[in-house]
């Protein structure tokens, strides 16, 4: 029975969030709570020669100052594994304060613990660290000569090379070849809530409150690093103030807080400062892509070559995998994708919303726009001619697609004009242009069994719970809808609980996988409990349903009744009271569809953008964004729209605003705060229109949910860059697109 799924139900935590009552990690209240502050290295590479903590230790309120010289070593060795997989998930294979080596700027060199926040911050400034610096590498340019091709990237689970056919032959047989290089600045997540951890010990057990996208990942990581059993670590997280990948992995400050709390014997809170948020939980690495595409006159692709180079840390071979989408969605017999790395003095880069897909599709979709221009084919048409019904890497058919309808509905909503003549439209001194790009994001899954528990009380109310956390996706609202439908209860009878590792396990909610995996477990728990109760009723001589076939019984608003004779039935509560059952429970389990599934799993969409470029000043303003997406079944049209809209605005930020750079001399980030690292503000953002193309998918998971968290970002930057070209005649290949890049061309009529 589906009556709640899909409805734009308002968020159940709305009242808490608009009144300020919603509590986030740093707001955990504990008696005797101490405040910890990290001191970060000011050099990017070298050694700590001496640390003088005497002034800090004697400052008012200071309880302890720890450096590599006096902090007991942690027993565990961090090894990077993506949190999705359900194992300890350190963000990088390195833990600070274990020796005197400095590998990247901002690496913790001391932790100050004090009674008050201000005292800790002040004392942190009194810690004197003497360094022996060594030359550092933080940019591709500095290390291009030493670049290497790793075997695997992205935490070891993606090969660095993807190849099929013969790219050289494919390029040779092409009528038209486009070969271009793109450079993308590094991006930071910058959720508005800074990462925070609060740790409180009780004997040999520790409770950790953490800003995380995976409470289980925090539990397993803290226990592995500190040499504890998972049974000794409980993690509590309700509300998280955004993540976007920043909190997808468990970074050193989390276990460090628990470690320090154990040393001082009191609860400790550690909150990262905004500048520390640039060098505490990875980043989207700056990257250079070279894309070569060969095509016949009719638009048939003959070859795609996609190469990337970027800087990784001393510890891990990390690169965003940029060819996962570009290798699989277009029919093309000859493909080659290679990731090369430069080992440098940065922390290990990490998942950032649309990790790899957003960057890779910027490069490919920009190139395809150029191909369409050279061929004189409508870029929408070029894509429709080449989009594949099968995953080109495996030959398996998509479980569902909907991409053609996304282009059709998106183009209609946008009012797509196939005339691609540059500098054709203007509005005063603004040149107007439009652009389009394909959007796609894989349906991600882990091997972990997803579990949820449903418990029904005899008054007809139910609690459904799983160990997840709410960082704005709407999970707490949406899973109530799923549970209500599964149990056959009214929405206001069901409460979804989450945020405690003592609850049944579900995977870290990363990779846009939360909606699909959690809804599967919640749905299974709800239907298992419903079936259990229906089974009891038909077996109970005291029930009006006694002797009925279970499948002939439907449940509506907590009342079980015969489908064909609704008068015959009784409520869950009546059955439970008669049986003297105060509550009944069921666990729901779902094992995600495996890698060996006979179909490919991808979410598709189409992105349209209209921009205005000031002819004199080179300013770019986005006037409209239209996105059409086919995310399988939509669980809540309101929260889904919000996530897609947020993703599209992120794409706009990637296109026009966001970027950080290393100062190559110091090896430090140049833009460490929200005053310097520009993110979209209200005045940057146009109205965003979204078409939800619901496609039935019986294969990806029980409810056919493909996820909406990241796809909104994929293709947006390309649509905007393509619109800038349409407006100005100039193709900008570096992100973010800045005034400087457009100024030389705009007043003089294009490049």
């Amino acid at each position, binding site marked *: 029975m589906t009556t709640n799924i899909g409805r*734009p139900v*308002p*968020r159940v*935590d*709305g*009242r808490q*969030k*608009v*009144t*300020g009552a*919603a*509590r*986030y990690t*740093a*707001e955990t*209240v504990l008696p005797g709570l101490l405040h910890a502050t990290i001191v970060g290295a000011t050099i990017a590479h070298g050694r700590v020669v001496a640390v003088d903590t005497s002034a800090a230790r004697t400052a*008012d309120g200071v309880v302890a100052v720890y450096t590599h010289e006096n902090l007991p070593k942690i027993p565990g060795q961090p090894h990077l594994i993506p949190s999705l997989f359900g194992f300890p998930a350190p963000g990088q294979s390195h833990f600070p304060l274990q020796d005197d080596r400095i590998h990247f700027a901002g690496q913790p060199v001391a932790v100050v613990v004090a009674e*008050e*926040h*201000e005292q800790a911050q*002040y004392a942190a400034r009194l810690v004197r660290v003497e360094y022996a610096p060594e030359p550092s590498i933080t940019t591709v340019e500095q290390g291009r000569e030493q670049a290497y091709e790793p075997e695997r990237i992205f935490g070891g689970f993606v090969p660095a090379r993807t190849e099929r056919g013969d790219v050289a032959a494919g390029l040779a047989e092409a009528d038209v070849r486009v070969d271009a290089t793109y450079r993308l600045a590094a991006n930071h997540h*910058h*959720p*508005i*809530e*800074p990462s925070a951890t609060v740790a409180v010990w009780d004997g040999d057990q520790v409770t950790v409150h953490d800003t995380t996208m995976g409470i289980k990942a925090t539990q397993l990581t803290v226990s592995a690093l500190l040499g504890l059993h998972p049974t000794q670590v409980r993690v509590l997280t309700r*509300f*998280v*103030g*955004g993540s*976007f990948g920043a909190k997808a992995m468990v970074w050193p400050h989390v276990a460090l807080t628990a470690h320090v709390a154990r040393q001082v014997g009191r609860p400790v809170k550690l*909150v990262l*400062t*905004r500048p520390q948020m640039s060098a505490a939980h990875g980043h989207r690495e700056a990257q250079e892509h070279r894309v070569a595409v060969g095509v016949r006159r009719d638009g048939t692709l003959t070859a795609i070559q996609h190469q990337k180079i970027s800087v990784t840390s001393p510890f891990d071979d990390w690169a965003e995998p940029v060819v996962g989408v570009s290798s699989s969605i277009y029919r093309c017999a000859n493909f080659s994708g290679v990731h090369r790395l430069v080992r440098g003095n940065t922390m290990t880069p990490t998942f950032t919303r649309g990790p790899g897909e957003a960057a890779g599709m910027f490069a490919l979709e920009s190139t395809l726009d150029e191909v369409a221009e050279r061929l004189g084919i409508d870029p929408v048409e070029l894509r429709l001619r080449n989009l594949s019904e099968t995953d080109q890497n495996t030959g398996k058919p998509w479980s569902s697609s909907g991409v053609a309808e996304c282009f059709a509905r998106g183009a209609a909503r946008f009012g797509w004009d196939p005339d691609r003549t540059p500098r054709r439209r203007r509005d005063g001194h603004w040149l107007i242009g439009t652009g389009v790009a394909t959007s796609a994001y894989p349906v991600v899954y882990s091997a972990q069994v997803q579990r949820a528990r449903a418990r029904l009380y005899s008054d007809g109310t139910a609690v459904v719970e799983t160990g997840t956390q709410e*960082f*704005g*996706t*709407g999970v707490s609202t949406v899973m109530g809808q799923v549970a209500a439908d599964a149990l056959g209860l009214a929405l206001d009878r069901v409460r979804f609980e989450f945020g405690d590792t003592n609850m049944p396990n579900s995977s870290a909610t990363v990779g846009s996988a939360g909606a699909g995996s959690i809804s599967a477990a919640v749905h299974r728990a709800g239907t298992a409990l419903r079936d259990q109760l229906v089974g009891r009723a038909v077996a109970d001589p005291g029930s009006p349903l006694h002797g009925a076939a279970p499948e002939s019984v439907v449940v509506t608003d907590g009342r079980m009744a015969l489908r064909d004779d609704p008068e015959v039935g009784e409520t869950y509560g009546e059955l439970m009271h008669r049986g003297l059952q105060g509550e009944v429970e069921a666990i729901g389990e779902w094992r995600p569809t495996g890698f060996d599934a006979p179909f490919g799993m991808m979410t598709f969409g189409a992105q349209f953008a209209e921009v205005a470029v000031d002819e004199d000043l080179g300013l770019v303003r986005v006037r409209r964004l239209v996105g059409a997406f086919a995310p399988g079944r939509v669980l809540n049209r*309101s*929260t889904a*729209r*919000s*996530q897609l*809209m*947020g993703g599209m*605005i*992120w794409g706009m930020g990637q296109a026009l605003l966001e970027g950080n750079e290393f100062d190559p001399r110091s090896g430090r980030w140049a833009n460490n*705060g*929200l*005053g310097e690292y520009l*993110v*979209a*503000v*209200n*005045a*940057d*953002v*146009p*109205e*965003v229109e979204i078409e939800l193309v619901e496609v039935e998918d019986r294969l990806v998971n029980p409810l056919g949910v493909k996820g909406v968290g990241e796809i909104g970002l994929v293709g947006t930057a390309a649509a905007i860059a393509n619109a800038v070209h349409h407006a100005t005649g100039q193709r900008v290949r570096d992100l973010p697109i800045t005034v400087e890049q457009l100024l030389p061309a705009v007043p003089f009529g294009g490049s």
Partner: protein
Amino acid sequence: MDQRDHTVGGPPPTPDGARGPVAAPVRLRVNGVDREVPLEPRVSLLDALREHLGLTGSKKGCDQGTCGACTVWVDGRRVLGCLTLAVTCVGREVTTIEGIAPADGLHPMQQAFVDHDAFQCGYCTPGQIMSAIALLDEGHAGDDAQIAEWMSGNICRCAAYPNIRAAIRQCRDQREGARGATA
């Protein structure tokens, strides 16, 4: 500092009224209630609210005056709590997100934010709402461009901006409708 009351302890003032760097009692009027807490003079209004008064609705996003999550009102004007020293608020009226709703209800702006799904993670939301209400009082909500400009001190990383504008429009139109009805 003449409002200071020494019942909480702390060092006595010097004859000229100056106080030292250590914590001393400070009386703040927050959401219509007088509260007295010992504060060091370097404590920001935001930290006084969050760490000392238990009012955690005002959020710390940057502590640098760049994100707007800490927006509160001092004497009815929106200010950044992280860039305001608590001791400068003595004798002033401080209003936070916890102080704007009627008992048992929501302020119309709070309701409008819920109606339009004008947030996701919710962390910037109290600051957004404090700015949004102030915006109406300032007369800066005439059209969408004006709303967007005057709301640009409040970053929403979830990027609910179009929905935030819709919420402000709803509240503005309700208010103008009410004014029209009484005129």
